[in-house]
C-alpha cells in the first residue's frame, strides 16, 4: 500500500532540501577540488528539485517568502524527511556513501512520482531524472574506485556502508514496495566489488517519513535557518 503522490512528494522535497544543505557544507573542504565542485553542483541540483516540489505542493505561483517559510519554518513534526537525510556525516567516507545510497534510491522515488497520474509532477520528474542519471554515475564511479582502491579506502567505505546502508531503507517507509529494487541495485555494485552488507528485510515504520524526527534533525534544521534567523524580515 503506497502513500499518495502528495505524501511522497513532500517526503522527497524535505529530503532534497536536507541533502542539498549537507552537500553545500563540503564547499571548500572536500578532499580535492574537482570533488568539491561536483558535490556543490549536485547539492545545487537537489535544492532545485526541492524548490520545484515545494512549488507543486503549494500550488499556483507561490511567492518566494511563502516557499521559504514552507521549506524552512514548519514545526519539526510537519517535516517528512527520512532519518538518513537528517543524519550528520562529517566524515567524507560517510558523506560519499550516503550520496551513493541516497541517489540510487532517488531515481526510484522519482519513478513513483512520475507514475502518480499528475502531468505537472511527471514533467518535474522527467527533468529531475536527467540530473539523477549524472548524480548516480558520479556516486557509483567514486564508490567503486574507493572500494577497489587501497586497504584504507576499502575499510573506510565498508564501515560507512555498514552504518548507512540499513538506514537507506527508511527512504522507502512510505513506498515499501520499491525497497527491494533499491536493495537490488545497491547489491549489484557491492557484489561487483565483493563487499557484503547487512540489509533489513523491509523499510521501518514510525520513522522520518511518518513525521517522527530523529535527534539529529534539530541541529541541521537550525543551521539551514541560521542566515534567515539573522533578519527574518530582510528582503533578498
Amino acid at each position, binding site marked *: 500500500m503506497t502513500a499518495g503522490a502528495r505524501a511522497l512528494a513532500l517526503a522527497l522535497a524535505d529530503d532534497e532540501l536536507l541533502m542539498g544543505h549537507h552537500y553545500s557544507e563540503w564547499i571548500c573542504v572536500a578532499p580535492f577540488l*574537482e570533488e568539491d565542485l561536483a558535490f556543490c553542483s549536485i547539492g545545487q541540483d537537489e535544492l532545485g528539485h526541492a524548490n520545484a516540489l515545494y512549488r507543486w505542493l503549494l500550488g499556483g505561483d507561490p511567492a518566494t517568502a511563502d516557499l521559504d517559510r514552507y521549506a524552512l519554518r514548519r514545526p519539526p513534526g510537519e517535516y517528512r524527511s527520512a532519518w538518513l537525510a537528517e543524519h550528520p556525516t562529517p566524515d567524507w567516507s560517510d558523506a560519499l556513501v550516503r550520496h551513493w545510497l541516497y541517489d540510487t534510491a532517488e531515481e526510484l522515488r522519482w519513478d513513483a512520482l512520475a507514475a502518480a497520474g499528475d502531468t505537472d509532477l511527471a514533467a518535474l520528474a522527467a527533468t529531475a531524472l536527467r540530473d539523477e542519471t549524472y548524480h548516480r554515475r558520479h556516486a557509483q564511479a567514486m564508490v567503486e574506485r574507493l572500494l577497489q582502491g587501497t586497504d584504507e579506502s576499502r575499510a573506510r567505505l565498508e564501515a560507512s556502508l555498514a552504518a548507512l546502508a540499513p538506514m537507506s531503507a527508511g527512504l522507502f517507509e512510505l513506498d515499501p514496495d520499491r525497497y527491494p529494487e533499491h536493495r537490488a541495485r545497491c547489491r549489484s555494485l557491492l557484489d561487483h566489488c565483493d563487499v557484503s552488507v547487512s540489509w533489513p528485510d523491509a523499510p521501518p515504520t514510525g520513522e522520518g517519513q511518518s513525521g517522527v524526527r530523529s535527534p539529529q534533525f534539530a541541529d541541521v534544521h537550525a543551521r539551514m535557518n541560521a542566515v534567515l534567523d539573522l533578519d527574518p524580515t530582510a528582503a533578498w
Partner: protein
Amino acid sequence: MRTYEVFLKKAGRDPFVHAGSLQAPDPAMAELMARESYVRRGEGEQMWLVDRAAIVVADADLLAPNADKPHRHNDGARVAEHRRAARGTT
C-alpha cells in the same frame, strides 16, 4: 592521478577551445569531473579530454625561424599596397 586538458566546442562553426585542465584517476572520472568543473553553465555542447601525457609540446626554437619570412605571407597585404599606389591613394 593524471592530468587532462579540457576542450569545449559550442554548436556552429567555432573550433574547440581550450578551457583548462583537471586531475582525475582515469578517463571516466575525468569526464564526470570536467562536466562539473568546466561545463556547469553549458559552456560547450561537446567536450574533448586529452591526457596531458598524450600531448606533444613543440620547442619554441622549432617555430621561431618561420616568424621572419614575409615572402610566405598570404594575407594579400602587398597586393593591396600595389593597388593603392595604382589608384594614387598611398
